[in-house]
């Protein structure tokens, strides 16, 4: 009997608390930005610095400028654990609060949200992840993947390899996390390999085997590929780098994508990681005025979960980069519509007309942080160029110029993929550009 009362009491209290929290009205005159982040689970190593970067830049704008255009930003994190199911739950739970844009931070979650975006009229900004084909803006009005897609990145990496000793007749090892994210660029890689005459050895790593890749790298040792490309995330990255060091694979021939180049990924391998390369589309290090402002206004005031040293880490800066694209799109939307508090539909216009010039980057204290991004109705990725960085044991150093992707090869394939995606969706919303 007592137990029943206790259980009922707990349940009742929880119900009341839950409804009270749910009915908490949103503050007047604010722009609500839900962040689908993850600081728990096997992907927390990669997810935490990104979450910090996103959160801290928005907080800095609130602290320093009082928001954007005089409107405060209301930022709320929802923990997804990189789990698509939880991500959708977060989406459904937050979309009613006036969300203007979603940053899903997982290709799996992005794939689930893409069809929902046109219905709910909230754009998705999957910055450098998600479905590559969404760069085709005519077919995907509500999804943006500025500044570059996986496919343009893959073609740029192939270009880099080609420029460093030629690629014809070479054997490329491709190790990837065996989920939607990792498999995404395979169609392009397959086509490029037959067009450019190189062979590909695919080594998928399941989520369960992420931290135990000895058999995968045994295969690498057997196959002896000339170059290795890695599409890893979370705990897969440091494990792969450690295993590569163990079998003495030449590190300067091992290139990770931009999601496989975090400081957390290389540090555990110690000196063995020196020479490892990864793609990137923004600067590392904290020598930017905007990042110093974050330290001054947010971290020193104890408003962040991040430690001062992590500012400038690759993934922290990735989060900042994402926040910058979001914030600049909000600003653009405010300029276009003349409204201060914008809606999801205004945000879509803002993202589509985003023009992040070198001058504007300097103005916001991020000179040279990234290549200028100009999104258009046709092209929802915008910039595309990437560079290759190398770990010198202490920090990332750029070892290449900005590499343009093979636009002529990638764009038609993107268009084909986009057409394929909407083929059996008769009510799919498209748009016409000019």
């Amino acid at each position, binding site marked *: 009997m007592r137990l029943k009362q206790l259980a009922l009491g707990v349940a009742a209290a*929880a119900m009341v*608390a839950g409804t009270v*929290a749910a009915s908490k009205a949103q503050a007047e005159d604010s722009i609500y930005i839900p962040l689908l982040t993850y600081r728990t689970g096997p992907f927390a190593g990669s997810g935490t610095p990104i979450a910090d970067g996103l959160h801290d830049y928005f907080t800095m704008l609130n602290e320093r400028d009082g928001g954007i255009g005089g409107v405060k930003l209301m930022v709320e994190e929802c923990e997804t654990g990189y789990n698509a199911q939880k991500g959708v739950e977060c989406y459904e*739970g937050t979309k009613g609060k006036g969300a203007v844009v979603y940053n899903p931070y997982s290709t799996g979650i992005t794939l689930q949200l893409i069809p929902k975006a046109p219905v709910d009229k909230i754009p998705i900004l999957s910055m450098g992840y998600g479905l590559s084909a969404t760069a085709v803006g005519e077919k995907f009005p509500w999804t943006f993947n500025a500044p570059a897609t996986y496919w343009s990145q893959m073609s740029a990496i192939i270009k880099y390899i080609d420029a460093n000793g030629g690629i014809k007749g070479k054997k490329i090892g491709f190790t990837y996390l065996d989920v939607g994210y990792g498999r995404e660029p395979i169609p392009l890689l397959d086509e490029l390999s037959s067009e450019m005459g190189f062979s590909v050895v695919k080594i998928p790593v399941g989520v369960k085997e992420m931290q135990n890749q000895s058999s995968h790298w045994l295969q690498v040792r057997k196959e002896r590929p000339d170059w290795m490309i890695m599409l890893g995330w979370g705990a897969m990255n440091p494990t792969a780098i450690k295993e590569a060091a163990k079998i003495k694979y030449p590190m300067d021939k091992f290139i990770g994508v931009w999601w496989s180049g975090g400081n957390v990924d290389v540090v555990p391998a110690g000196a063995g990681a020196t020479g490892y390369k990864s793609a990137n589309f923004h600067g590392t290090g904290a020598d930017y005025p905007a990042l110093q402002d974050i330290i001054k206004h947010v971290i020193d005031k104890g408003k962040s979960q991040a430690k001062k040293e992590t500012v400038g880490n690759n993934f922290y800066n990735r989060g900042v980069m994402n926040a910058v694209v979001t914030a600049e799109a909000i600003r653009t939307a405010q300029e276009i519509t003349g409204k201060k508090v914008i809606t999801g539909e205004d945000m879509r216009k803002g993202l589509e007309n985003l023009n992040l010039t070198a001058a504007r980057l300097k103005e916001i204290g991020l000179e040279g942080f990234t290549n200028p991004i100009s999104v258009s109705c046709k092209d929802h990725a915008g910039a595309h160029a990437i560079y290759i960085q190398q770990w010198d044991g202490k920090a990332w150093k750029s070892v290449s110029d900005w590499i343009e992707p093979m636009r002529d090869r990638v764009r038609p394939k993107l268009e084909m993929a986009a057409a394929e995606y909407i083929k059996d969706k008769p009510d799919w919303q498209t748009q016409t550009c000019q």
Partner: protein
Amino acid sequence: MLYRETGQFKTTYRADQAVFPIRQDLIGIWLMLAFLFLVVPFTFNDFWLNSIMIPTLIFGLAAIGLNLLTGYAGQLSLGTGGFMGCGAYACLKLTTFFPDLNIIIVILLSGFFAAIVGFIFGLPSLRIKGFYLAVATLASQFFLEWAFGRIAWLYNYADSGAIEVPTRRILDIAITGPNATAMTRYLVVLFIVVALTWVASNLVRGRFGRSWMAVRDMDIAAELIGIRLLSTKLTAFSISSYYCGVAGAMMVFLWLGAAEVESFDINHSFLVLFMVIIGGLGSLLGSFLGAAFIWNLPILLRGSFGQAIDAATVEHIAFMVVGALIIFFLIVEPHGFARLWQIAKEKLRLWPFPY
């Protein structure tokens, strides 16, 4: 006082054997159904429908599926996630081949494919018992996960390797896909779940259920009184997998709208197993109570903390609280919520004048 059966005389065997022999229970269940069908869809907002009602019903059905196998037939299974996946992938393939076929029929049909797979993986249960059977079903879980990830035909060669749910309409109302409203999807889920629960409640009271329970309690004795182990265990596996398969198909088509292999991984099997254990082994009501508890507790915790504490901490707290509560319930009431409800009912019959 309210819950007293004095004066309710059973004059026929039929009345005595009814599913709800007490009139208050019968009225209660009709009121509950009326509330679920008539009030909930029109008053609850999208968040409630999408994040609480639909998943609770779907997990409730999956828990019934596992409960038929584990609670009634006594065969421990860790393959629930895989069987749910079978249903989901079968549903995708069926609706690709027959786009004009009514999607509700497709969902119900897709359960049969899960049943076939469950039948095949149930074959070893004749020779393997207890923990060893659990390990054998674990193998099925891993095999199915592997198949979902590797066989591109299953996910229609999508680049992402994920199931993308197409829009399907009945009478011009979108039932699946992004255009389907939460209300429509909720009503379809509710309809299927209520219908299948009704079937299950009759199954467990009939010949199947009784032979399952006999096998569960002592298989040698069951064999001696003439119950064939082969057919009993295999029907348990097939019917259980059918329920799991339908739940999986609904999970993808009527709730999530898309799914990857990870949606059907081993954690998913554990989740359903916890629901069954917490809810009460061998109880249909318990399946729903367990599903509601395990699914909604983290959401409630998150809701009650709101923005006061950051999201990751709430997640950690939710993990700890759910874990602690599972242990608490297992110690205090190992028969789960169903037994608690039964005790409460017995007390209520005497309330407010207990002796």
